[in-house]
């Protein structure tokens, strides 16, 4: 009796655990089912690289080139803002900060991670957009604004993982470097950061994933223009924000094209995750 019950429980738990895999499979299946047909219909080349997105055209023109470039610029911009700042804060928190300040920074970063993205978008819209419009020109709703706010939004990802990997560097490395007469900065720059390199890389890739996937905050700040941005002050659109903006109004082929955009985004993110996975696994082996 006992044995039967135990076996039943073990079975149930197996099924429960497999629900995760099942969920992933269903998501992948339904997204691809909704989006792939039109990609084949239009041809992968045209869909990915054409910059003409005009659902109202006769027959519809669907090329995601412009928004893919928008995503690229915004994501790179976010990394330019977020990576130096994030790694610096991680170093500060792991190496330089007095204990009380380090104890303050940890929950602060957690809070930064917990603030809803719509709040970031809103503060960006109310504070940064008018500032950019007045001091740098253009409509203010642009790549630059979105990139800065996204850069702040990915800070928690970068800081927490980088800090963990900095702390995981064996103390002997640090002691050795200091004993050889290196300054603390030389130790940090020449020993600790290289030793924590793969963790920092993983944090950057995950931050990239977050920047690439963010939707609502970007919709609020980027202006959603379908042009290929030629300057940082041009409005643009991203893969995500275009889905978010147009999904509600789309039907038929237009909707399929949005799902196809989702397929591309999904594939992109999966590749990024795999890379992050490989990078961080290498760290474990090292």
């Amino acid at each position, binding site marked *: 009796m006992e044995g039967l019950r135990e076996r039943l429980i073990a079975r149930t738990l197996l099924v429960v655990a497999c629900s995760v895999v099942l969920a992933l499979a269903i998501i992948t299946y339904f997204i691809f089912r909704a989006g792939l047909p039109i990609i084949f219909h239009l041809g992968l080349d045209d869909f990915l690289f054409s910059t*003409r*997105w*005009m*659902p*109202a*055209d006769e027959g519809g023109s669907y090329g995601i080139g412009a928004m893919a470039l928008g995503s690229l610029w915004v994501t790179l911009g976010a990394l330019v803002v977020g990576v130096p700042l994030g790694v610096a804060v991680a170093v500060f928190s792991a190496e330089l900060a007095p204990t009380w300040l380090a104890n303050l920074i*940890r929950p602060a*970063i*957690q809070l930064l991670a917990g603030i809803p993205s719509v709040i970031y978008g809103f503060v960006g819209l109310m504070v940064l*957009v*008018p500032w950019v*419009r007045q001091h740098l020109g253009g*409509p*203010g*709703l642009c790549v630059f604004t979105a990139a800065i706010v996204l850069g702040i939004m990915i800070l928690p990802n970068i800081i*927490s*993982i980088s*800090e*963990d990997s900095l702390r995981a560097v064996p103390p002997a490395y640090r002691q050795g470097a200091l004993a050889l007469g290196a300054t603390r900065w030389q130790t940090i720059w020449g020993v600790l950061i290289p030793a924590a390199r793969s*963790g920092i890389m*993983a*944090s950057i890739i*995950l931050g990239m994933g977050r920047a690439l996937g963010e939707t609502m905050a970007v*919709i609020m700040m980027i*202006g*959603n*223009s*379908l*042009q290929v941005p030629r300057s940082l002050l041009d*409005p643009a*659109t991203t893969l995500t924000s275009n889905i978010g*903006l*147009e999904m*509600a*109004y*789309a*039907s038929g082929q*237009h909707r399929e094209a949005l799902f196809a955009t989702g397929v591309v985004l999904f594939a992109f993110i999966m590749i990024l995750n795999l890379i*992050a996975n490989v990078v*961080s696994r290498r760290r*474990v082996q090292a």
Partner: protein
Amino acid sequence: MITHPVLSGARQVVTLARRRCRCASLSVAGILLALAGVTALSGCARAGGRAAATRVTVAGSTSVTPFAEQLAEEFMRKRPGVQVNIQGIGSSAGIQATETGAADVGMSSRALNQEEVRELHPVLVALDAMAIIAHPDNPVRNVALPQLRRIFAGEIRNWRMLGGRDAPITLVNREAGSGARGAFEELVMGKGGSPLDYRSIRQGSQGAVRAVVEGDPNAVGYVSSGVLTPGVRALHVDGVAPTAEEAVAGRYKLVRPFLFVLRRGEAPVGLARDYIGYVLSKEGQETLVHSGLIAAPKEALPWKD
């Protein structure tokens, strides 16, 4: 392994709390409760079903949404206990939702196309004069219709060419599929005319368009004249202001229909019918006119009252 700071925090908690085992029953109870919750939830879901008698779903155009919501609020105040759910999902999606039965009533801010008319019956609930809006500080007060067409085609790109300041025009458009954009294309750009400039800023609702124009002295956009605020100025088109009087008199040309759409062959019953009846009633129409729309000319309803 990548560890989140919170995860390491959690680990710390556990390490420190490891001697405490007495909350065994508590955790089991927690899980059971959760499971019971799920079961109860799915039970509710089934029991909830389609309680058509007290609930009606109206979905579609975001331009119509604010007005439909206002009328729904008044309607629900008169009929406590009933629920009118207004979903602002866009004209095309609303039309589709009505076809498939996901919504009881659809809202559209553009005329139905031929395919749609075969499945659905449009009920005209109001007319809307579309206003061309700019920032109050902008000295330009009037545009000619051909100028407007060239502005939105991206051919006129500086206010100087319209007698204004030397500043680039920030175009603010709606996105493809929205009724407002569809109507604007039809009324201003014309069939087969030049397309709307793809470089323009796009916003997801009239409120969002208005918010951009309120903030940017060089912006121009289009919204329903029912949602004008002191923060924006409605330009005259060919010297005519976008008011209800001018529209009714036929002098202001940028007028579009606000429609409710229903499935053909199915007369609406119960609450849906009452709600539409209220919208078309004298009281409902007065509310709409008060909000800046134009009352719908009386027309035969698809069902007998």
